[in-house]
């Protein structure tokens, strides 16, 4: 019985895994990472505003032209500024944002390991 439960759990886990989801298309991936500028707080993927529908079309066109994800992001950031992407780019304004969590994690690890060593 226990094995059966584990198998079911495993199947559910695989099913929920976004990598295997059918909607894993490049267009969806890109539009989910874009802010809708009309209804802010929604992604372009979720939004049905005029702006978002046009943007989806533009992205679709760009993908069929063979442009890469990075090229499309660059194109849009050029037009609307960096704010349009949810994931901040790595530059001199955002390096702290990217590295601070890692730094805090390492610092915490160092403190813990030091305490453990002292206990011994």
């Amino acid at each position, binding site marked *: 019985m226990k094995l059966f439960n584990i198998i079911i759990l495993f199947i559910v886990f695989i099913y929920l895994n976004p990598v295997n989801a059918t909607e894993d298309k490049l267009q969806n991936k890109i539009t989910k990472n874009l802010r809708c*500028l009309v209804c*802010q707080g929604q992604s372009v993927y979720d939004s049905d505003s005029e*702006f978002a529908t046009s943007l989806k*079309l*533009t992205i679709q066109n760009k993908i069929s032209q063979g442009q890469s994800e990075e090229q499309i992001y660059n194109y849009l950031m050029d*037009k*609307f500024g960096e704010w*349009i992407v949810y994931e901040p780019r790595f530059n001199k304004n955002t390096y702290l944002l990217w590295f601070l969590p890692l730094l805090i994690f390492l610092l915490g690890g160092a403190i813990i390991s030091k305490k453990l060593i002292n206990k011994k």
Partner: protein
Amino acid sequence: MKKRITSLLTISILIFVFIIFYKSLNTINFYKPKSEIKDIPQFSALSFYSNEKIDSKKIFNKDKYYLLNIWASWCVPCRDEHLILTDLNKYDKLEIIGLNYKDKLENAKRFLDELGDPYKKILLDKDGTKAIEWGAFGVPESFLIYKKKVVKKFIGPLNANSLLEIEQIIK
């Protein structure tokens, strides 16, 4: 003594948090994209009247100021703005180019019949992709252009202030 410090600290933290929340409750947090586009985008679009394809290179090439105005008949602020466009139409140095955004042709024609047509040329943007080329995200938006560069971008309807501003620039 320790108890008093703790309660004082708690209260001050609470007040601090309250002030921050209260203040941000009243700030409008709406982002408007800063226009990074200096060079005008290249595109081709169908003409409103003749239904032929016009290349953007053939439009903005005179030694004049151009005002590209993105509009639609269904857009209510465009109605108010139309008076200002009509006002601006009197300047010889300025040509107003319309970009008709996601509109029905008959509605757009009715709109112009009713309010007048200040546009030198009108281009069609049936699916909104041309507006994206311009970095626009809604209607109305206007771009003042000189020598193929965007001098000034207006998000939202033009008003008396923007009219003054445009007049000052083109003088």
